[in-house]
């Protein structure tokens, strides 16, 4: 493990530096380059963060389900670790989606929360993530935990089209594809790209951490240490 440490440290550092630069550029684009919106003013800049984290929440759910399916096919713990790390980040991003959406709604709709279809579907997604981790925490035996979680992660995929299509299916008031200045659209795309890169980096780091924890646990079991 020690022999690998310098190489992975170098890779991690380079990737982290790259993502940090990308996010710094996003910050400049959001607060300097993007024009001030006429109706909402500076509050509208929340959208650049909100859309990016919402995208990551959905991507987290999809990645969690796909990694779960890969685990059921391959039965290697690595896929279960990918599923868990994607789920954890997806849950974090869905929390941020609800928080930033609430801040935006307070200014746009004069309320912190309304039972609008897409908001409700996003809250459902948050509960699905919560249920996934509750089930994970309830099962001690690792292989059963991985298998049950994988099945649940695949079922959770069914909520993704619901979140995406909620406004169209249930006639909600959430904006779908509003007309935007080209600079605003560019900043939005850059923000989504920046946060997606951060998501991938954090998922990879968390997966590595879970893998190392598993190796330590295996060593402890071999040495007869009970924690």
């Amino acid at each position, binding site marked *: 493990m020690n022999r690998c440490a310098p190489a992975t440290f170098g890779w991690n550092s380079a990737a982290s530096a790259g993502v940090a630069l990308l996010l710094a550029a996003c910050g400049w684009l959001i607060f300097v380059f993007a024009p001030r919106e006429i109706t909402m003013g500076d509050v509208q800049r929340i959208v650049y963060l909100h859309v990016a984290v919402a995208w990551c929440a959905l991507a987290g759910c999809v990645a969690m389900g796909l990694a779960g399916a890969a685990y059921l096919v391959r039965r290697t713990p690595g896929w279960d670790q990918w599923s868990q790390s994607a789920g954890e980040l997806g849950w974090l991003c869905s929390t941020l989606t609800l928080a930033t959406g609430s801040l935006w709604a307070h200014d746009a709709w004069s309320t912190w929360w309304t039972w609008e279809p897409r908001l409700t579907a996003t809250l459902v997604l948050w509960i699905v993530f919560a249920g996934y981790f*509750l*089930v994970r925490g309830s099962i001690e035996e690792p292989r059963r935990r991985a*298998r049950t979680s*994988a*099945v*649940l992660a*695949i079922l959770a995929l*069914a909520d993704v089209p619901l979140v995406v299509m909620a406004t169209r*299916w249930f006639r909600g008031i959430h904006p779908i594809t509003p007309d935007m200045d080209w600079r605003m659209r560019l900043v939005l795309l850059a923000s989504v790209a920046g946060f997606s890169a951060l998501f991938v980096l954090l998922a990879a780091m968390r997966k590595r951490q879970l893998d190392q924890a598993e190796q330590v646990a295996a060593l402890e079991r071999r040495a007869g240490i009970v924690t």
Partner: protein
Amino acid sequence: MELIQAARAWWWLVHKDLLREMRAPRTWAAMLLVALALAMVIQLPLELPAAEKPAFLGAMFWLSAFFAGTLSLDRSFAGEQEDGCWQGLLLYPVSPATVYLSKVAGNFVALCALNGVLLLAFALLSGISLLAQPGLFLATAVMANLGFAAVGTLASALTAGLAQRSGVLVLILLPLVLPVILAAVGATQSILEHEIGAWWRWLQLLACFAAVFLTLGTLLFEFIMED
């Protein structure tokens, strides 16, 4: 030939579950009593204008069906484990998909019986019949119960054997089944408001949901049954 054998095995499994419930009614009796209690509790504070009452009753009908129906779903695998029948079920010379579909059928019958009792209770207590157009309501109930049974059976199997089974079941079942509840409520309201076009769209959503989860359940059940 294999299909006929599978169908015969499926029927015997359904027959076994129904017979067990007939001989020692535990699940159905509790479920139907909870449904009656819910119907009564809902009617007590109901002092709405006559025009708003049907729409409200439609929503309350499906919510009552969901909460009472969860009791039946909860017991469908827990009963097998408590009585030590799970090992016997695993030893049956039938595919896991057959076992899953038989459990779905058993739960579907239970949910249909529950709908019948709730319809009667709501009609007697509120004076408003949800059966204004029986054919349309029947189609809605069949699709909603099929979707609910498909998801619920999977969730019940996933949580069977967990320490806090009932709590976890509700937590993972509610978000997964929310599209069914919303679509069933929407379809029922459309029937009461004589909007056949809207009803048809809701029914398509219900059918789509049932088809997706029946397929997922049939494919994934073998992974749940491994223990």
